[in-house]
């Protein structure tokens, strides 16, 4: 059996409900006949948009890790916590499983997500035909894993709300939290704008030759 993609067959599938369409007439401003979502053969300007979001995330991940995410003030002065020092605090305080989770979610995941998206973009732009199935799987992992980086934001939010004992002790979220939240959101949007079907287009093209 010969295989064929929807694009080669001149068909478009709806990204929201999955219905296949055979477009007639000019191929712009088309909407799904069933659920009304905009139809595209590939996500529009996928590579450019993903790069833009990714570069912004690369820039913001620096302040996200250097600036304090939490500032705690007490009678004895104030103390600041970056993401890394939060992990170290948990590690020393005995709850090492949580320290490991936090390290993976707040440090390992954001950095590896940036690197993996960069790899996917570069490999698509170089029209690589290497291991497309693995790269697609990598993309699916990226899509799933990004949300877990939000843990640190929620920790900061809860501590801020709970530890309000006036001059005795109080915790505020620091500027690092803003940058960190922005990195999470930007990389989630970047994963959403990347079109994994672009990984397979060069594979199809080289097979056709």
């Amino acid at each position, binding site marked *: 059996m010969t295989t064929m993609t929807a694009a080669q067959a001149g068909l478009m599938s709806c990204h929201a409900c999955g219905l296949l369409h055979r477009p007639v007439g000019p191929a712009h401003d088309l909407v799904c006949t069933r659920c009304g979502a905009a139809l595209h053969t590939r996500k529009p300007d996928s590579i450019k948009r993903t790069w833009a979001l990714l570069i912004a995330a690369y820039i913001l991940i620096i302040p996200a890790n250097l600036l304090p995410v939490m500032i705690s003030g007490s009678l004895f002065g104030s103390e600041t916590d970056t993401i890394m020092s939060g992990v170290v605090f948990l590690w020393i305080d005995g709850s090492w499983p949580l320290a490991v989770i936090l390290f993976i979610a707040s440090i390992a995941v954001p950095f590896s997500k940036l690197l993996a998206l960069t790899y996917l973009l570069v490999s698509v732009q170089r029209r690589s035909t290497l291991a497309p199935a693995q790269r697609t799987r990598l993309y699916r992992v990226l899509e799933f894993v990004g949300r877990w980086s939000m843990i640190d934001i929620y*920790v900061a939010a*809860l501590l801020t709300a*709970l530890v309000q004992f006036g001059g005795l002790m109080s915790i505020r979220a620091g500027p690092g939290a803003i940058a960190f939240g922005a990195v999470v959101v930007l990389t989630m949007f970047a994963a959403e704008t990347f079109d994994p079907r672009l990984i397979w287009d060069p594979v199809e093209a080289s097979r056709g030759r």
Partner: protein
Amino acid sequence: MHALRLHACHDCDLLQREVPLALGGTARCPRCGAVLYRRKADGLDRTLAYSLGAAVLFLIANAFPIVGLEAAGHHSSTTLFGAVRQLYDDDMTSVAGLVFTTTILMPGLEIAALLYLLLPLKLGRVPRGLPAVFRLVHAVRPWGMVEVFLLGTLVALTKLAALASVVPGIALWSFGALMFLVAAAAASFDTHALWERVEEVR
């Protein structure tokens, strides 16, 4: 021509014939392994039940305090919205917005949209604006992060336990249960069955 139903993989665009599945079956793309569609037991009823349960828990989880804290004779407690308010008052507007969006707005929208679609369909009517609400469910899903929030709460409690005595609130348990119900509603939502039901009712 109508008998031949085709499906394009959303991850690699491979065109394939749609095959009927057994109950509980999953269709995967033979080329890249993406899950294409599933056939769920009880069609949409289970999703409706999970969504109803989630709606109740969502209200409880937002109305009651998540945790209370006692230190040196002081007592403090907060609801989820209270945490958002505190961030907002501390001029952390964007972080407050992010927390509000991912833990209150998006999960709430997802539950409400599912109920809006499934309740009338159950009663034999097609709700107004069904296509738009269907797309809303699709768009909102990645941004609801109840399960991540719960893990964040756990980390926060561990940190606090070092300096004060921590009293878990009703909302904490509600969030725990809400996490499972939201995930179950999402996993059981069979979009094939939805569109078939819409055809039946019309």
